[in-house]
């Protein structure tokens, strides 16, 4: 995690005028703001080539044939996928990796922003590359990429043995496995999905399909003792090394840990489980009844349910509170500890807790305009765009990045200004 203490938390605004960008360039793609709000960037097209404009300055003297997927790392460095002369690579702050690939995609930044990983294809073979260094082995196909918390290790579901399409029985013998830093597990499976690292990066778990009908969880290539009619993505306990995953049998979902049921109450649906920081609580998105959705914490669903969907489950940093987004009809609601805000939105983004857990903020859309809501109160300003808000480490201030009438604005305001 990147500490935001060094950021400028003085109350006030900084503005960057981007209104002339559309004249300067043939076109300007989506704008992205750095996490600290000091930079705003977009891929731009100029002289029939691509470039990136950051705070009005072009990224590179030498434009590229193609640039896409511009984002910022958590430590505020812009990066993008870039192609020149038919080779693809990654560029960070305008510097490209020296290595190029036939294709590179799905970039992932580590939590501290120091490492970047991508999926790469070279001569029809697939691997991952971290900071420009590709795995030593490659595979027939790749998917479900995972980057370890520190960014030092990568893993993915890989097809170890190539089978031609139509060879169904060869396929059913198992061609997929998990590769960690390019080294694949010995056992092969019919399918592998959703690869997850343990917090200490020493273990890797994934969903595996043993034949057309039996599914289970594999940890470092070892299977759980039970098989299920299907499973969803596993996750690790933050400290104990235990693995939990939703598993389905007889048409019902329960939560299992290392092959044993830990939430006996079955659900119509159960997924996206996550532990709080110390691992004392486990929450998940559930459907307790057909067509009704909510959050369950330690197996107990909130009484308040929603008819359309629930997403973006989030624990507060202290692990005591839980927030999520819930959709009823076309409207989105922010729900905290089982209580929905009064305001409903056309769209809402993942709720953000203050470090002490007392305040919840979210980027929201109302009447086609964007703003920020804190504890069910709306910021007085609606904009053409806002980015997701961020609390200061002392809980008192909120960083809001917004765009309106061609002006990008970095605002630091007192949380009380909205929340009270």
């Amino acid at each position, binding site marked *: 995690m990147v500490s935001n203490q060094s950021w400028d938390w003085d109350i006030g605004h900084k503005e960057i005028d981007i209104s002339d960008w559309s004249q300067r360039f*043939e*076109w300007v*793609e*989506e704008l992205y703001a750095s996490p600290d709000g000091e930079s705003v960037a977009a891929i731009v*097209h100029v002289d029939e080539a691509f470039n990136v404009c950051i705070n009005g300055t072009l990224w590179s003297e030498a434009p590229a044939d*193609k640039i*896409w*997927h511009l984002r910022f790392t958590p430590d505020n460095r812009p990066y993008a996928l870039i192609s020149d002369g038919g080779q693809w690579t990654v560029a960070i702050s305008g510097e490209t990796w020296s290595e190029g690939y*036939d*294709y590179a*995609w*799905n970039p992932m930044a580590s939590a501290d922003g120091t490492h970047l990983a991508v*999926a790469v*294809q070279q001569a029809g073979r*697939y691997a991952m590359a971290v900071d420009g260094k590709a795995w030593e082995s490659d595979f027939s*196909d*790749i*998917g479900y990429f995972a980057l370890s918390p520190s960014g030092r290790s990568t893993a993915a579901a890989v*097809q170890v043995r190539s089978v031609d*399409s*139509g060879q*169904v*029985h060869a*396929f*059913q013998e198992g061609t*997929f496995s998990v590769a960690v830093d390019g080294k694949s597990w010995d056992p092969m499976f*019919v*399918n592998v*999905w959703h690869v997850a690292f343990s917090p200490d990066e020493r273990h890797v778990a994934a969903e595996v*399909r043993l034949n*057309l*009908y039996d*599914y289970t969880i594999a940890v470092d290539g070892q299977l759980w003792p039970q098989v299920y*009619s*299907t499973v969803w993505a596993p996750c690790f306990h933050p400290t104990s090394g235990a693995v939990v995953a939703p598993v*389905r049998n*007889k*048409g019902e979902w329960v939560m299992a840990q290392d092959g044993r049921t830990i939430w006996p109450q079955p659900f*119509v*649906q159960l*997924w996206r489980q996550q532990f709080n920081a110390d691992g004392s609580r486990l929450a998940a998105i559930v*459907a307790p009844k*057909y*067509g009704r*959705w909510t959050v369950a914490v330690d197996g107990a669903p909130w009484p308040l349910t929603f*008819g*359309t*969907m629930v*997403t973006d489950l989030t624990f507060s940093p202290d692990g005591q509170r839980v927030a999520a987004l819930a*959709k009823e009809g*076309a409207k989105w609601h922010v729900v905290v500890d089982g209580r929905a805000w009064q305001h409903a939105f*056309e*769209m809402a*983004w993942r709720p953000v807790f203050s470090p002490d857990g007392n305040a919840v903020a979210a980027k929201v*859309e109302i009447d086609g305009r964007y703003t920020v809501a804190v504890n069910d109160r709306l910021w007085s300003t609606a904009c053409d765009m806002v980015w997701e808000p961020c609390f200061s480490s002392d809980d008192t201030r909120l960083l809001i990045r917004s765009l309106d009438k061609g002006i990008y604005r970095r605002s630091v305001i007192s949380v009380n200004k909205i929340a009270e």
Partner: protein
Amino acid sequence: MAETDKDSTKSEELDEGIEVGVRRLTPERIQTVINSVLGAETGARFKAYIQTCIHCGLCSDACHFYLSNDKDPRFSPVGKVKQTIWPMIQAKGRVDAAFIRRAAQIAHTECNLCKRCVQYCPFGIDIAYMMSMVRRIIHKLGVTPLYLQDTAHSHAATMNQMWVKGDEWIDTLQWQEDEAREEIPELRIPLEKEGADIMYSVIAPEPKFQAQLIYQAAVIMHTAGVNWTMPASMGWDNSDMAMFSGDNEIMGRVKRAHFETAARLKVKKIVMGECGHAFRSVYDMGNRWLGWAMPPIPIVHAIEFYHDLLKSGRIRIARKYDKPVTLHDPCNVVRGGGLHEMARYVVSQICEQLVEMHPNREHNYCCAAGGGVINCGPPYKNKRMAGNRVKAEQLFDAKSRGAETLIAPCHNCHSGLHDIVHHYEIGLDIKFFGDIIYECMEKPENP
């Protein structure tokens, strides 16, 4: 007729998916699987259907296979139930491998799950559902036809139906974007644009073989000023042949990936290309398996999307398509989604003249390709052609009344009708709505 029968029987022997599967069957496995599926995976509907059916045969005339095969009762909807489910129930699962082979052929290649028979049964018995249960048993027994099983494998491994790899998908979109920029320089296919209004999703044959459809869609989106995006991750494919292979677990997994991709991109709607079975999978079947009573993010089929764009004037037609057209109503979006009047509105806005086929709208005849039948591959093509003579007659009739172009706003229908038009030498040009709109719309001037 006899010749066709012989041909299809002969070619069916070549289906390695069925034959290898049948060789591996044991009486015990057959019995266990049948009893577990019928016992644990069916409920009130299945029971009520079995107990309510009075064997009146009124469903027969609904079925294009029955009508086209000179009213051979083996092809009637209830006749298919009689040859599959009734003996399984009566014998309590003690049926032999030859029976299973035949059941696989019936459920997978002689029924399109089009549900027209539901409209002909006084009790509304859903024989398509019954055939889906047979397919579930066939899946559990490992006897699914080869091509369909391979497609289900592709879905499971890649979340798309044609083994399109992660890089190939994005590369294709970027290639189409480049191509389209030759025509409209500032055109974009926005990838991973979080917060767009619409996620546009397609089926894998588009990037694999028909990339021009993505090009056309991009031109339509651009011209209409739609705030849209396409995902650069898995979950872009809205199709789902696992739904038809009885592999419900994979069906659900594929649909989850699709909806969660749209949710991740924070879009308000998913607009899908001209595909019927994909619509069924996201609007009716897959969402239900996952516990969503209705799609959590609204699904807008291309017909409805074009209807809205034309009605609101966001796209304008420069010159209507002047050849007389006839319109095929795809089962999954018409009987399954009620889009028939919107389709006619679109035709009225983009074409000079519509020659209706009869019967039409929700009483249309199926194309005989849907329900995963065409996906069972070449071994069954003859059977599919013989099994849809009535569609050929409909098309001939429309042609004799002047139709020159056949609009089929569904991929499977498109391919199935293409086969029929050639097999019966009907001579109709087949198009998607998107083809005609792209051809006839006002486009931004190329400076």
